């Protein structure tokens, strides 16, 4: 069970204005808004939290296929200095990691902490989609999570173990 989300921070700056009135309260819980308020780099914090929510949304679609837009129901409840995180959705717990290299912010989430040892970063686009539009690797049938934003493409999978 995995999900990932990549944010091209340059593009996000151009495409979205999270500072507009009402934006933060529509998307973020009180706890998350507090993290944003306290952050020295607020842009980075906004998109870290956003990408964790998106990752959990994607991962949860593998558990039960849902459609809907409910960013506030997916709640980041812990985030440390190394950007390790815990997020809850529908009473399910997701462990997350976020990395930032230059303007590429990438988050991914798993359900069991051990799964962090089995993350595969795939370069190629050799994936197909099932009837629900969920991607999997062509040959191994490993379920994947694919995220594309601006100039970045990140494909991750969970190896069989």
């Amino acid at each position, binding site marked *: 069970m995995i999900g990932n989300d990549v944010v091209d921070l340059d593009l996000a700056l151009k*495409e979205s204005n*999270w500072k507009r009135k*009402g*934006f933060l309260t529509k*998307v973020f819980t009180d706890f998350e808004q507090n993290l944003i308020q306290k952050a020295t780099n607020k842009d980075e914090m906004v998109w870290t939290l956003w990408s964790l929510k998106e990752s959990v949304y994607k991962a949860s679609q593998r558990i039960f296929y849902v459609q809907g*837009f*409910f*960013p506030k*129901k997916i709640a980041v409840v812990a985030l440390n200095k190394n950007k390790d995180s815990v997020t809850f959705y529908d009473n399910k717990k997701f462990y997350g990691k976020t990395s930032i290299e230059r303007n590429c912010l990438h988050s991914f989430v798993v359900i069991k902490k051990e799964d962090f040892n089995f993350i595969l970063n795939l370069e190629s686009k050799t994936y197909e989609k099932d009837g629900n539009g969920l991607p999997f690797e062509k040959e191994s049938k490993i379920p994947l999570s694919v995220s594309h934003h601006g100039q970045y493409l990140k494909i991750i999978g969970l190896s069989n173990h």
Partner: protein
Amino acid sequence: MNKEEIIEKLKPIVKPFVKDETAFNAINEKTHFITDLNINSANLVDIVLDVEEAFSIEIDNESMEKMLDLEQTILIIQEKLSTK
């Protein structure tokens, strides 16, 4: 406000977030914001906020959850307008 009037009022709200002009020109009641218009989810929030402003209504989280296509959006706007 009827469907057609609402759609006309929604078009300029949606336009800045759609890169594909052909898809935009084909907008109708069945259009899905993400699958048809390729709008990213952060911009969905902008659309919700713009709709609130344009129609002077408040969209609660429960309604926002369903605002993924024009059909639902129209229903939500009509419902909120009627209870104003």
